[in-house]
């Protein structure tokens, strides 16, 4: 049903630390890998080896640069479904294919009900949903629902593929409804924020801002000659080489 749950039991989501992310795209690749065999499979690629490939991905890593104080900062920015508390992608769905789970807040698409009208993708300002031209249905991040609850896996592996693979631990997964969870603490300590709060979608996923960087020259010393007046053996070499 497209009616939204008043409140969800858990509120599962991700924290993405923009200070740590190095933009390696491993999260996007592992996402593609896991979900190509998961509940939303296949993530169709059209013309994959041609000049103009077109495929479904749930996770895209943008890189931005900012210009404050004339000094550019590069920020790598992974973008995926934010599993909003007010997901308009769900309420606009005419068939009930899109829904938000009452137990954990995950936003999903039932592909058997989806008519492929694409309206949900129009309703999402974050570009979380991508249409599968081949399957004729909309696809989106499932928060690896077939992984995080999978009892065949070692408990340590029951996290979304993007989180499991991140080589710098820039991604964390947890329950935001629990104020003592690691993700809740991270958001409190580091000033985690919502993307486009003005849209009113109340995203669950939070982003941690890059830490303030030291300006060049604050700590590092510029290269200076070790000795103004070389003495001893080195002084002798210097004098010998300088003559003529």
């Amino acid at each position, binding site marked *: 049903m497209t009616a939204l749950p008043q409140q969800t039991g858990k509120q599962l989501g991700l924290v993405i630390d923009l200070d740590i992310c190095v933009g390696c795209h491993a999260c996007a690749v592992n996402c593609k890998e896991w979900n190509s065999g998961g509940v939303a499979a296949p993530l169709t690629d059209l013309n994959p080896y041609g000049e103009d490939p077109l495929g479904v991905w749930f996770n895209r890593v943008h890189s931005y640069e900012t210009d404050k104080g004339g000094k550019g900062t590069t920020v790598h920015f992974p*973008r995926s479904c934010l599993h909003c508390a007010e997901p308009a992608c769900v309420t606009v769905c005419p068939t009930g294919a899109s829904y938000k789970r009452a137990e954990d807040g995950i936003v999903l698409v039932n592909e058997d009900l989806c008519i492929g*009208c694409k309206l949900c993708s129009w309703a999402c300002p974050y570009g979380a949903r991508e249409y599968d031209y081949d399957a004729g249905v909309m696809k989106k991040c499932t928060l690896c629902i077939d992984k995080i609850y999978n009892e065949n896996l070692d408990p340590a592996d029951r996290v979304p593929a993007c989180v499991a693979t991140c080589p710098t631990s820039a991604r964390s997964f947890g329950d935001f409804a629990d104020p003592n969870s690691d993700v809740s603490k991270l958001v409190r300590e580091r000033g985690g924020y919502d993307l486009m709060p003005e849209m009113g979608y109340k995203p669950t996923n939070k982003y941690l801002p890059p830490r303030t960087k030291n300006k060049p020259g604050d700590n590092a010393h510029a290269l200076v000659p070790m000795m103004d007046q070389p003495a001893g053996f080195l002084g002798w070499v210097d004098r010998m080489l300088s003559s003529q």
Partner: protein
Amino acid sequence: MHPAFSVIIFTTVSGAGFGLLCWLGLYAVAGLLPANQIFAFISIALAFGAIAVGLLSSTFHLGHPERAWRAFSQWRSSWLSREGIVSMLTFVPALVFAAGWILLRRSDGIFALSGALMSLLATLAVVCTAGIYFSLKPILAWHNNWVMPNYLALSAMSGMLLLTALASVFGYATATTYWLSLALIVTALLAKLGYWRFIDSAPVVSTPETATGLGSLGKVRLFKAPHTSENYLMKEMGFRIARKHARKLRIISVLLGFVVPFLLLVVAQRAEGFPAAAFSVAAVCISLTGVLTERWLFFAEAKHTVTLYYGGSLGAG
């Protein structure tokens, strides 16, 4: 936004069909419909045909048209679902009305009542169509108070132009018929101009800075896109071919949609017989072409918030 041809046809043609049904119902209530079976049949066939063609066309852009029936289920939250249901419901009083008018040559009593209900539902169907676009917050050009009046005014205008053409062909057109058409053309044109004025100057709230939350670091510029070729988002939301010609297309749609039909109807009003009919028919045909252009622009000019992530901006132009 990518202007899907099927959706443009749907909103334009079924909008005109609902408009025609609405006016037929109101004319029935006013006791002004002639008891002419051929006129009745052609009018009803045209309205039903337009709505049916529009609704069918709208299913062509679906990934799974065979599941379209499922779209009737989520009327509590989805304008698209409501639109489907109200469109279908409109046919209930419309069929009663049609039976009375065509078979029994009656448009009074219970049939006038059906006509009134048909008018109400036809109007609601257009409200629902507009609601689909109006409800989409990420698209500033659609999520504003000009969208609903525009859809209603354009549907009322197209419907009335159809009725005027039919009435003049059958010799039923009166001065009032023409005056009503002319007034609706002016109203719809004003609504459209107001809409364009609004979207050209609407304040932009979301920026690359709010989209990324990196505003405190200065102006945010896309340094490296996540992928080297276009993805679905860029194809669907990043459409910009028609935007290049937006100014010219606006002029074309104003001329074809409103100005030329207005002039043709002014001439038709002063003519009689065949010339009047010819001018009235030409007016509606040309107007629908203009409205199709307008509807194309409604999509092509609309910028989606997600383009902010791909180096776009939401300002006009």
